[in-house]
């Protein structure tokens, strides 16, 4: 939830108008352009609630479904928030999730639960280390490094599985990573909540988070102020890939299998969620809570359009238009 510029008066007025009580104090800290995501979310929710009432939009089952379907994107987007706030990009997250899902499934089948989870995390750590090293040590633009890695990770995932899905028979894994519920609350919701809360606090309230924002805002000045900017760039790319590998395991748990297609294209949804959430595409400011709402807005739109009976081609068109509109409103001064 950190931010750079703020116009307290506008944010307060907006907060008072649209949100009750507790959120208000939180939102006062945000600049109003960033705030548009919350208005957009509430407005879209209201529209669907009215128009799609008969289709069961407001049923608790449907609402929880939205969370369930958005969880992996939310988790990936939390990591992406750091990368973009640091003025870098990570295009490899979707295929890292896919690779992690198959590596987890295969390791789990051979060596059991613990090794499976560690193997999945290792995918993220290895890919993140390579991405980070190439960007920070060799100064290759992250766009190119991660574009290459997108292909490599997807290719490896398809290669080692010979394109075949890898079923996961461990109930413990499936329950922990996505299929299970805690009482009425889906486990995926808890996973996203943990990532969002930790991500928001670390970005806004720790030295690391502040140094990420400073590096993204002006790398030279940050370096001249004693921030180890190479290290920061390395760390955000490592973080992003590792978080993506967890998202891959959430796919695996929810769908009870590892498959190279899981996560394909998620990098674009995650970037859209981050930008919708008010993080500057050019670095220097970022909001994890905004990212959550960005991801939820995308999930909400997907869900609403399906309930409205649009076919998938129409959904794509409407979704694209809504995203452009939201970003345009958020940019307007």
């Amino acid at each position: 939830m950190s931010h750079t510029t703020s116009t307290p008066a506008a944010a307060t007025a907006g907060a008072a108008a649209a949100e009750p009580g507790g959120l208000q104090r939180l939102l006062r800290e945000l600049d109003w352009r960033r705030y548009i995501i919350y208005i957009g979310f509430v407005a879209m929710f209201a529209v669907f609630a009215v128009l799609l009432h008969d289709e069961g939009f407001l049923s608790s089952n449907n609402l929880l479904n939205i969370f369930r379907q958005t969880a992996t994107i939310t988790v990936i987007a939390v990591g992406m928030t750091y990368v973009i706030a640091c003025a870098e990009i990570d295009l490899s997250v979707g295929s890292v999730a896919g690779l992690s899902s198959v590596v987890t499934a295969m390791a789990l089948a051979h060596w059991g639960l613990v090794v499976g989870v560690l193997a999945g995390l290792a995918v993220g750590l290895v890919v993140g280390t390579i991405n980070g090293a190439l960007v920070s040590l060799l100064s290759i633009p992250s766009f190119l490094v991660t574009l290459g890695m997108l292909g490599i990770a997807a290719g490896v995932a398809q290669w080692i599985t010979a394109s075949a899905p890898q079923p996961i028979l461990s109930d413990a894994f499936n329950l922990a990573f996505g299929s299970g519920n805690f009482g009425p609350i889906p486990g995926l919701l808890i996973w996203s909540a943990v990532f969002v809360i930790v991500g928001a606090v670390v970005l806004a309230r720790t030295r690391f988070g502040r140094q990420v924002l400073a590096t993204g805002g002006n790398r030279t000045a940050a370096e001249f102020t004693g921030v180890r900017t190479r290290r920061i760039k390395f760390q955000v790319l490592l973080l992003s890939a590792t978080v993506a590998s967890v998202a891959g395991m959430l796919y695996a748990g929810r769908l009870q299998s590892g498959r190279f297609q899981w996560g394909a294209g998620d990098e674009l949804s995650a970037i859209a969620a981050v930008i919708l959430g008010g993080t500057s595409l050019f670095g220097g400011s970022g909001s994890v809570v905004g990212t959550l709402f960005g991801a939820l807005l995308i999930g909400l739109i997907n869900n609403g359009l399906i309930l409205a009976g649009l076919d998938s081609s129409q959904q794509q068109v409407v979704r694209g238009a809504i995203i452009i509109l939201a970003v345009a409103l958020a940019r307007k001064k």
Partner: protein
Amino acid sequence: MSELEQDAAVAAAIRMRGIDKSFNGVPVLKGVDLDIAPGEVHALAGGNGAGKSTLMKILQGVYTPDAGEVEVDGRPVRISSIADARAAGIGMVFQEFSLVPSLTVAQNVFLTTEPRGRGGLLDDRRAVRQTREVLAQMEVDVDPRARVGDLGTAYWQLTEIAKALAQDARVLIMDEPTASLARHETEALFALVERLKQRGISIVYISHRMDEVYRIADRITILRDGRRLLTSALSDVTPEQIVEGIVGQKIEGDLAYRARAAHDAAEPLLEVRGLCAGDRVRDVSFQIRAGEILGLAGLMGSGRTELARALFGVDRVTAGEIRMRGRVVDVSNPAKAVREGIVLVPEDRRDQGLVLDHSVRENLLLPLLDRVERRGLLSTRAGRELSTSLIERFQVKVAHPGRPVRLLSGGNQQKVVLAKWLGTEPDVLVLDEPTAGVDIGTKSEILETVRALADAGKAVLIISSEYPELLAVSDRVLVLRDGSVVRELQRSEIADEESLQLAVQGV
């Protein structure tokens, strides 16, 4: 054409009458009058918030005045956009150059006014030819086909001027035009200003450097608190009167050296032996005692900035050692230098000193994050308290510490850079051109702070190309030439600015 016009033009080139302008109800300009005669160089001076830039932005069409009239060549005009200003013959040489580095000089000069050929396609050859004509009139040697990004800053400025002239500007506004120029480039610019004058082109010259103003300006207008204080021929005012007019009170002796308590006895705090870095720092040795201010003088390219960068770990040290209190220290990157108590106020505060879009508070706290950390989390309250105390201690004039630092004036931005470092309680301060582009009032405040810090036992290394300033604070001066120390002078050995000048020039 210029002579004809000059004869006919009894009217002022620019005549502004009773200009009012407020922002959010706060008056910034109050009934300001300004007359610019054809072919004159008119200096515009004033402290922070005096209204100089607002007045000029009205002339450029960035702001519209709330009240008042503007006449150009005797005709009333309404300037409500930059295009209007251009059509009225007003050109601006921006302080931050408004050029596209990836385009050529000619493409920049004719950006948006490109000559077209048959079928509406751009006629690059004609653009190059016309640019060459403009540059020839300016009597400067620049290749119109060169990419601007490949040229030095001095050429950027010439391209800016050519751009204005190509659009038939009759009045040029120059804002701190010599700030980024070396001495000989400054001379070349002054010669160009002289030629432009003879062609009847008027120049509004904004500068904090008194010597320049006396050198090239015919008249001066001083603004204070949004009002015009005086307009006068420079032959009728003394520098003291101008400074007093800008600052609003008589500042005494701020530019005179004051001997401070003796520090000969003190042990060297910073000691540099045989330092080499790149090809601009060659075998440099010196020491600074606690409480001492060491000045570093040298021409552009003498390795002053590079020495500062090497001390702060920005550039790699290839040979030699740096000792703090006798102990060899590793300053291979800025983070380590800060830990050892060495800090740098860099020459370009906008690019190297500040994250401009971040708030004043965030900038102040960036090197101090460990100080406001409570159990692994940054404490908002501790951060507020610390930043507020720094703002008060260094008298940074800031509307709200949560507002972006880019909204502050140059002088206050520089104070933020200083304050952020002083919060780390450093032992050694390296200041690279600490008062560049800073108004005269803030400048004396900064110099006063530097003295106070030395008095508090810190070692200071100050780089400045303004000799009066260097002489005002330095206890000792090193003269750098081609990356090596060629002279070391006690302050008492330097009679005046001229003798330092001679030492630097090596005559």
